[in-house]
């Protein structure tokens, strides 16, 4: 009896899960695996369009003879690179029409014109002409003939489904001189973006955790940058930072803090003189990181605030009795309490910043030294149009991601053990 129930339970469970599993498999897992397939292929954006046989139908009346009509089909292969084999053609005609000169590839049977047009090489073009005669000698309605559209079908080789593989994409990715630069930019961006977001998250959480007027309002305001759409925010920042008509530059010039405008998003390096040493700061990258921190510190704030509110008040009271000062209280009570949250947060944010695409794309488009791996996927795949290369870069990202995930789940497991 119980085994029967268990069986029913199992069957219901699979039934309930199956739709989700199927959807996630086909839209997330399958693409990840097909990335591997594509990355070993020499595919370009223009190869993606499946070659199609096309026909344009022209209807022309013949002079002095309203009972006859001439049809011209302008046939062509839409692809400039591939052949279409076994092209078939089908078109419908109104009643009482008979062809007078039928091409030997075609047949006319019960109002249907059917042709087997064979193989079309690339860039193929042909005009197929047929004259029709009305059997009951009435005038032919052009409109009715035009209302039918010819249907064509043919087979072509799909470049994605062939078994030709190449290692060239990966060779190009790794041998590229800019690859090291790409990696270092990505890590620089990811690391400082993550650290910055967490530091500001701690500061904000520490602030909001105290009692003051308008605290709940403050909490909502702090989350605004995270909730609002990235497109709107990125373009607002772009206007704000614009060198000629941007608010920030004009404000700084107005108060005589800087002499001339600085192109914060378009200048790759800026030389800073600190204590007599010249530092080369990556300006555009730093600006993008600041935007990143501005947008994502709310998340760290939310996590840390939740943890801070769970810290027992007695700990602080005991510390007051012991005569601890605020810094000691923060270092010895608050920090150890939130350390676990911070480590988890760091890993999650690290993984997500590593894959961040929209923010950089919208602010700089990857120019002036802000090209990271995700931006490179887009540029290779869609700006240059080399889908295979784009996939190869994606594979590099997935490889790094797997390493980070391994560390992350180790960390999660360790934390679960501690609790």
């Amino acid at each position, binding site marked *: 009896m119980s085994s029967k129930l268990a069986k029913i339970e199992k069957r219901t469970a699979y039934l309930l899960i199956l739709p989700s599993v199927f959807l996630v498999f086909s839209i997330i897992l399958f693409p990840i695996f097909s990335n591997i397939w594509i990355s070993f292929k020499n595919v370009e954006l223009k190869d993606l369009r499946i070659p199609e046989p096309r026909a344009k139908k022209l209807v022309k009346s013949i002079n002095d003879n309203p009972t006859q009509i001439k049809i011209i089909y302008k046939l062509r292969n839409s692809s400039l690179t591939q052949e279409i084999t076994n092209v078939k053609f089908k078109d419908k005609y109104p009643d009482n029409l008979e062809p007078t000169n039928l091409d030997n590839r075609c047949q006319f049977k019960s109002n249907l014109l059917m042709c087997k047009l064979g193989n079309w090489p690339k860039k193929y073009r042909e005009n197929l002409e047929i004259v029709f005669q009305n059997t009951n000698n009435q005038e032919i309605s052009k409109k009715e003939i035009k209302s039918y559209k010819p249907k064509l079908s043919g087979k072509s080789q799909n470049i994605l489904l062939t078994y030709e593989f190449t290692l060239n994409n990966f060779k190009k990715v790794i041998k590229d001189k800019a690859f090291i630069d790409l990696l270092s930019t990505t890590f620089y961006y990811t690391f400082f973006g993550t650290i910055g977001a967490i530091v500001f998250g701690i500061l904000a959480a520490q602030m909001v955790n105290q009692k003051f007027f308008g605290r709940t309002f403050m909490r909502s305001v702090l989350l605004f940058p995270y909730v609002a759409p990235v497109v709107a925010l990125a373009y607002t920042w772009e206007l704000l930072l614009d060198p000629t008509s941007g608010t920030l530059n004009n404000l700084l010039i107005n108060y005589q803090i800087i002499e001339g405008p600085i192109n914060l998003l378009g200048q790759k390096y800026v030389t800073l003189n600190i204590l007599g040493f010249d530092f080369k700061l990556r300006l555009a990258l730093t600006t993008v990181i600041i935007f990143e921190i501005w947008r994502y510190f709310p998340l760290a704030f939310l996590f840390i605030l939740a943890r801070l509110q769970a810290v027992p008040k007695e700990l602080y009271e005991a510390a007051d009795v012991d005569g601890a000062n605020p810094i000691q209280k923060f270092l010895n009570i608050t920090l150890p309490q939130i350390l676990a949250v911070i480590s988890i947060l760091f890993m999650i944010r690290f993984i997500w910043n590593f894959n961040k695409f929209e923010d950089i794309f919208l602010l700089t488009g990857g120019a002036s030294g802000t090209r990271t791996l995700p931006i490179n996927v887009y540029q290779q795949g869609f700006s240059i149009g080399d889908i295979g290369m784009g996939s190869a870069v994606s594979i590099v990202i997935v490889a790094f*991601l797997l390493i980070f995930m391994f560390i992350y789940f180790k960390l999660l497991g360790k934390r679960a053990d501690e609790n």
Partner: protein
Amino acid sequence: MKIKNIFTYCLISSLFLFSLICIWKILVTLQGIELTNFNFNKLFTFGIILCVINLLIGKKFNLNIKITTLALLFSIFDYFISINLPIWYSFGIFLISLFFFNNIKNYDKNFLSKNHSSQKLSFNFLTLFGITLFSFVILFPFYMMLVTSFKTQALLLLNPLDFSINFAQGLPELFKSYFIVFKDYNFGRYMLTSTIVSLGTVIITLIFAIPAAYAVARLNFFGKNFLSTSILIIYLFPAIVLVIPLYTIFSQLGLRNSIEGLLIVYTATTLPVAIYMLQGYFKSIPKELEEAGIIDGQNWLGIIFKIILPLSLPAISSVALYVFMIAWNEFLFSLMFLDRPNTFTLSRAIQFLNVGAETPRQYLMAGSVVVTLPILIIFVYFEKYLVSGLTAGSVKG
């Protein structure tokens, strides 16, 4: 009383006052008023003098009289060193200094001789300063977005620092950019598309996720543990590694430039987090309720609809709001999949405005307000649900 404490007290208080004044001055500059100097030396020194006076008076007088007098003194001083400024500027200075002296009114010699008083003081001021600065830095871009949409191209180029809104010009003139954005740039249509896509994603995701989450939370089956860990792993895979294969597949299937294609992708990408959030909540519902349902002769469907769903409405609404937010804000897939204007979502349309011909910035900002405002209103109104959704689902972002 330690000399060090007095020193830190004066320095930090005066610095705090000065930074508040700076923020006020920046705001005033942005109203188009000419102001080119912070007057650091004079204001800072005078601030220190007033702080010392405040300390010396201590609690000898009525505190309210004390702070009002000090604030008045400070604003009169500021009025004399800055020239030709409107009266509301000085009034602002008066209010700020009133707020400041109200904060330091309780400090006297006794307080400063206590342990750690200088550190406590610094922490207090840091908190206050932090709150002001954080609100300023966060709200300023939003403020700029809104005000820019109310201005005209000529005014914007004439004085990029003038962010005053001229209400005298009448409402039609004020909202001109919005009329143009909706009429000439077709934003009504994009807004409809965005709404359909976001609501559609929410509904389909819930239809898929609720049964699956219930199964993961309650039923025993082979591969359950594997499934629940893989949900999290799948969730961590970013859109950028899916984009090329999906693009190739969707172009060959003819699913690009269609709302259906977008709906499929959005649903699939939000599904893992929805299942993850819901199953956590379902586990917290007492099992006895379901057992009672089984005794009453309910089948699994009945249990889900009559017991689980009504009990977990808060969790479902927070999942729904979170998914709505993700779908509304999504950019990468809409950039990849949509290139015909008749299928654009709002985000894609704004990007198209920016990349295309020289679009005047007030239209761009009006478009940005149109896409930002609904989500902010939803956020403020349903904050409780959305915050719990964000916390649970915030592994992604």
